[in-house]
């Protein structure tokens, strides 16, 4: 008996919920549909490079924003971190100073430190410069340095 009562009560409750009366005079209602597209981007940085002996300007490839889906007020910022010194592998006290410039080897003059990119395809060509006088003073041996590119998704200022 109790079971039947409970069943009837449940059926009635369901009916009362599903059969809400809708009046033709009701206002139009709006529904907000939202979604979030996560920002994505791909940045290419220069590959490892061996500088030919005695060459004063050497192309160092480019920093490029290959693809990007970023918010309106944001940008992709690339900052270069370097000692600007090639160090002799056998004796770290022996060094060759260098600079990294914006632009191709034949026209590079401005020192590169940072760049901000907004759209896919934006890029900055880089060139490594070593003064002739610094080559002339360099001791024999293998020299090396690591250039770090810090990539940030940040506010566009």
């Amino acid at each position, binding site marked *: 008996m109790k079971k039947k009562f409970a069943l009837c009560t449940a059926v009635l409750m369901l009916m009362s919920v599903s059969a809400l009366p809708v009046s033709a005079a009701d206002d139009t209602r709006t529904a907000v549909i939202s979604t979030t597209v*996560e*920002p994505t981007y791909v*940045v290419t*940085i*220069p*590959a*490892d*490079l*061996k*500088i*030919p*002996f*005695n060459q004063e300007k050497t192309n*160092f490839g480019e920093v490029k924003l290959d693809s990007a889906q970023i918010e309106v007020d944001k940008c992709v910022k690339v900052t270069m971190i370097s000692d600007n010194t*090639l160090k002799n592998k056998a004796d770290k006290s022996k060094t*060759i100073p*260098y600079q990294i410039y914006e632009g191709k080897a034949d026209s590079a003059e401005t020192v590169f430190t940072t760049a901000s990119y907004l759209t896919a395809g934006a890029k900055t060509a880089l060139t*490594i410069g*070593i003064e002739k006088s610094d*080559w*002339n*003073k*360099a*001791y*024999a*041996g*293998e*020299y*090396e*340095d*690591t*250039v*770090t*590119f*810090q*990539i*940030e*998704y*940040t506010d566009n200022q």
Partner: protein
Amino acid sequence: MKRLAVVLGMCLCLSAFCPLTAHAEESAVISATVPDTHSLTVTANEDIKIEVGTTWIQNGDTVKVNRLSSPCIMLELTSEQNFSKAFLNGVDITDQIRVEKYGYIASYYFEPVYEDMTLEIEIESNLPQTGYSNIYRIIEISALLMTTTGIVIVAKTKKEKE
């Protein structure tokens, strides 16, 4: 349950902060090799004895010299040869060549060597190149004049005696 709550809380916190800034770092290695020796080629317009450091070389030979070393080059000339000019990688260094021992030895101390080099030596020869030189012509003409004068004098003397 508490653990789950903590994990969920951390996830929420992370998801709230991550979109603000995202960092990534990539690096590239740049390298260079500086050679420990350089080539030195010596050429001369005549056969001369050439000594670089302690090695005798032939005209047109190439020797290896240590980078940033200052080798000495010696040119041994004969009595028929005079040192004239010298060019190092096309630059005139004639006034830096030391000529000694009555012109038989010419020497030069290089600045610290930092690149491949070519040294061109110009030698003047004392011997006539072709035919007679001017001095021989003068001697020849003088001898002719003296002979002619002698013949004339002999002829005059004979006439006077007759």
